[in-house]
């Protein structure tokens, strides 16, 4: 394992120190417990947005704290859900009197910890609603699994729900629009290489030099199956087909297409994948109205990508276009 770190146990704290040093003008960082909070929180009368999850997915979530997106993020240890006390602290810090939304990726750990935090916050008189993201078509959503994982769509939910909150919408309205994004979005990911968590020092799985793993999540878990590597066109097809069938997306739909890097894949490859996505979308009669290409929800240094399609309507498009001013996503400000 070769990494730009000090001690494996200090990775999250050291990175938070870097975030504090780089973005101290926009966010307050606390270390006990770990939180990243908008410097001007709480914004009075605005619904507060809190998300969080294991570290190692940067810029998710800390990079999305700022006007027009999250009010706070709770970073857990690498690939480990944060704890209820972090979430409670963040919830209290951003409560501007209009209630707080928790944006939670559907993993047992995240769900249980956020559940406890919401109970604690409610006990302190803060109204809390939860948006659960579960957009990963690689996972069967059935009684016999923990349900679909929350992956790429989480970024889009944070942006769009953030814009709704910014526009002065109520707790219920913000929650509703966030859930609508999750319901209209689908994601599928793949890996060329595994990743190595600092704590374990071992690759999360082994892949041959000519194999790819299809249907991975964002925690270095093995995927649904592996196969011989093919050209980018084939890989894009492999990811797009289940996405298109699942919602299903139909000819004439306006969509946002999001090609996300897993952290170790260079941008030039993401653009190659995007070109294939655009081709496939066009062949299915989809109109890509908005797009996002880059490393936004990652798995440490894993090489690979995920594709997310979100069906847009006028309201979602308007919220997507609204100004946002965070370290990792910024426009109109």
């Amino acid at each position, binding site marked *: 394992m070769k990494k730009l770190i000090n001690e494996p146990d200090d990775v999250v704290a050291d990175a938070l120190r870097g975030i504090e040093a780089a973005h101290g003008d926009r966010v307050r960082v606390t270390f006990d417990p770990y939180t990243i909070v908008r410097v001007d929180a709480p914004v009075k009368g605005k619904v507060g947005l809190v998300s969080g999850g294991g570290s190692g997915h940067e810029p998710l979530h800390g990079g999305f704290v700022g006007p027009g997106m999250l009010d706070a993020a709770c970073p*857990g240890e690498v690939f*480990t859900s944060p*704890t209820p006390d972090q979430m409670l602290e963040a919830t209290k810090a951003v409560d501007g009197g209009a209630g707080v939304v928790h944006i939670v990726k559907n*993993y047992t750990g995240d769900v249980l910890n956020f559940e*406890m935090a919401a109970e604690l916050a409610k006990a302190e008189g803060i109204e809390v609603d939860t948006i659960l993201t579960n957009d990963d078509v690689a996972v069967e959503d059935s009684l016999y*699994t923990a349900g679909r994982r929350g992956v790429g769509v989480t970024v889009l939910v944070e942006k769009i729900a953030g814009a709704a909150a910014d526009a002065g919408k109520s707790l219920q309205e913000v929650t509703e629009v966030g859930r609508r994004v999750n319901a209209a979005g689908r994601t599928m990911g793949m890996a060329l290489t595994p990743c190595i968590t600092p*704590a374990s020092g071992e690759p*999360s799985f082994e892949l041959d030099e000519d194999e790819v793993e299809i249907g991975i999540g964002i*925690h270095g878990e093995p995927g649904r199956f592996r196969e011989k590597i093919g050209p980018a066109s084939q890989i894009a097809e492999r990811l797009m087909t289940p996405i298109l069938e699942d919602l299903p997306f139909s000819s004439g739909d306006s969509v946002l297409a999001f090609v996300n890097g897993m952290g170790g894949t260079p941008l030039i490859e993401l653009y190659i994948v995007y070109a294939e996505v655009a081709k496939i979308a066009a062949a299915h009669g989809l109109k890509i109205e908005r797009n996002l290409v880059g490393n936004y929800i990652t798995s440490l240094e894993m090489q690979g990508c995920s594709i997310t399609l979100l069906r847009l309507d006028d309201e979602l498009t308007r919220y997507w276009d609204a100004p946002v001013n965070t370290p990792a996503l910024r426009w109109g400000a």
Partner: protein
Amino acid sequence: MSLINRDTTLRWIELFAAQMDEHRQDLIRLDTAIGDGDHGTNMNRGMQKALEKLQAAEQADPSAVLKTVAMALISSVGGAAGPLYGTLFLQLGTALAGHAEVDLPTYAAAWRTSVEGVQARGKAEPGDKTMVDALLPAVAALEQASDLNTGLRAAADGAEQGMLATIPLIARKGRASYLGERSAGHQDPGSTSTYYLFESAAAAFTS
């Protein structure tokens, strides 16, 4: 020994913490195969935190010890294991409140309540390939025992069998469930830490 008290409870927790430290890599390896590889780190971090908290303040009775452990785990473990083990210890501590010394029937009943609490939080059924598969046979063994010594030994054996029985199972809860059939053939990490929990208990109380 026929009663559990504050000191044996503390010894149990210390032994369990030592086990989590010793078997950290094993748990990581199990969790890497069908999860995300952090279970060993999580449990070890949590139990170290628990020891710190226990050292920081005098604990009045078993209940106080258990509640302190619960709060330490909830606020430092994260992941699935944090809330689940946190709930387990919190319920155990709550059920034993007011007892300076605890006898077998009281102890077994407290465990039953606690495991029900874990199931209520995590919604796992027996056979879902989770810590519940180690917890249930352990508690059943306690309930059927005639004294604490043999009961805790039987509980540890029950947990071990429950742990080994997870190997062929297809996971239906937690991260391993994403793997579907690929999860079969691997031992569940959470049931493994639960086995160490009862092994430590047997060692702490039956010496």
